[in-house]
């Protein structure tokens, strides 16, 4: 059963240096508060897993928390580049990072295999692309038809962290709106943390509601506004202006650092 604990304690207990960590949320419900707490705790050498690194991983990479990045689309949606992501890959700043990249379909299927505790998933894809020689996929033949398809290896993060609208006091969680791969990420991971906008006495079933029982979650932490500048449908709005502003903030290493110090690290930076 999930324990409801302060975010600081949840991150301290669940995320260790060197862990593979998946902070998921597809455009919607991105767990910014938890990612920032990981930075404030000074976690290092992380394998960061996420389909769409987005601003959150741009920040975590730029702060030097990532040893390795596993992803499928590293852009600022509708705006352009993730400059810290680019700077790390193009210039090795603040230090070089390893990358493993897939297509969205590949990553999604890797999570489903992880959630199902299977070692791989089967799909059509990758064939003919240069991705094949730069990532981990293997051809596999259908034993009935002989058709050659592609196998992708399961994702099994050490920790999954997602954000949801609500939890009850037993740590049962409900999210609604675009569900992304959050359920799969939580079920695929060895440990899990869900940050929520609010803790309520009882979860009211919602249209589109995805419920995760508290007994598949390790910790739940209240983090109102914790998905901003992304959003929590029905509670907060996506801060599209900030997504645009991030382009300028992140383009310059010093400006980025100053922004992070002021808005995220609050003087905690080592």
């Amino acid at each position: 059963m999930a324990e409801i604990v302060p975010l600081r304690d949840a991150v301290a207990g669940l995320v260790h240096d060197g862990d593979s960590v998946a902070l998921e949320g597809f455009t919607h419900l991105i767990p910014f508060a938890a990612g920032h707490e990981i930075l404030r705790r000074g976690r290092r050498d992380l394998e960061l897993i996420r389909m769409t690194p987005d601003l959150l991983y741009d920040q975590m990479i730029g702060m030097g928390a990532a040893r390795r990045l596993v992803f499928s689309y590293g852009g600022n949606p509708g705006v352009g580049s993730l400059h810290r992501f680019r700077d790390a890959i193009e210039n090795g700043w603040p230090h070089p990072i390893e990358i493993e990249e897939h297509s969205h379909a590949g990553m999604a299927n890797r999570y489903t295999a992880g959630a199902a505790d299977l070692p791989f998933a089967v799909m059509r894809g990758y064939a003919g692309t240069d991705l094949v020689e730069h990532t981990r996929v293997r051809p596999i033949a259908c034993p009935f038809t002989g058709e050659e398809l592609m196998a992708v290896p399961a994702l099994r993060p050490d920790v999954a962290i997602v954000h949801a609208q609500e939890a009850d006091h037993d740590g049962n969680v409900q999210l609604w709106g675009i569900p992304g791969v959050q359920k799969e990420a939580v079920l695929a991971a060895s440990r899990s943390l869900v940050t929520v906008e609010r803790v309520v006495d009882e979860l009211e079933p919602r249209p589109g509601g995805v419920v995760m029982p508290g007994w598949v979650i390790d910790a739940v932490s209240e983090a109102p506004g914790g998905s901003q500048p992304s959003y929590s449908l029905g509670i907060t709005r996506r801060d599209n202006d900030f997504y645009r502003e991030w382009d300028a903030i992140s383009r310059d290493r010093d400006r980025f650092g100053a922004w992070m110090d002021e808005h995220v690290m609050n003087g905690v930076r080592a």
Partner: protein
Amino acid sequence: MSPADSGEVQTVVAARRLREARSVFIGVGRPSTAAILCRMVHNPELVLVYESGTIGAKPHRIPLSIGDGELAETADAVVSVPEMFNYWIGPGRIEVAFLGAAQIDRHANLNSTVIGDYDNPKTRLPGAGGAPEIAASCGEVVVVAPHSPRTFVEKLDFVTTVGHGSTAVITDLGVLEPDADSRELTLVQTHEGVSIDQVKEATGWDLAVADEVAVTEPPTDGELSALRELVSR
């Protein structure tokens, strides 16, 4: 009304492409604008599908991201990302896909991964996203891209997405479609005021030109005012 600029022409031509379509898969930016415009002026029943999981979204404003709240709130159905790729895109349920690309070659292979060497990139691009499986599965692919030799290249730095047999490319200069025999992208249409030579110069390979090159019917007042109204929302 001021005359249409080349970007507006490109959007209007892309929107027209969806006049008869049942469903279209779109990313953000110009493709999204074109698809919403098409719903406004040509095809109100057009089903917009975003890879965020929203099926049948009816955005009133142009979304910044593929997961803006308005898309979820107006969709007929919202599904998980695994379901989107496995049950909807993979089996080819979406008729047309609108894609962008940093580089495209004459066989409509697309690069959205890297400029330069993979391990020592000149420019690291966002990566594959949904494009490879979307291109492979949808009945028709429409690439919407600015026409320049940097984008229309002889050889891709990285093949992110394998060219689809029925790809059309809509640029700010004209329209390319695969030749029936060679399957090579061929100039079939130029926008008003654009010369064939101008298009050839903007293409990084020796661009084939169809026997008959049509000239784009200019945006109507209705199309253009709808587009400008949409952009201003």
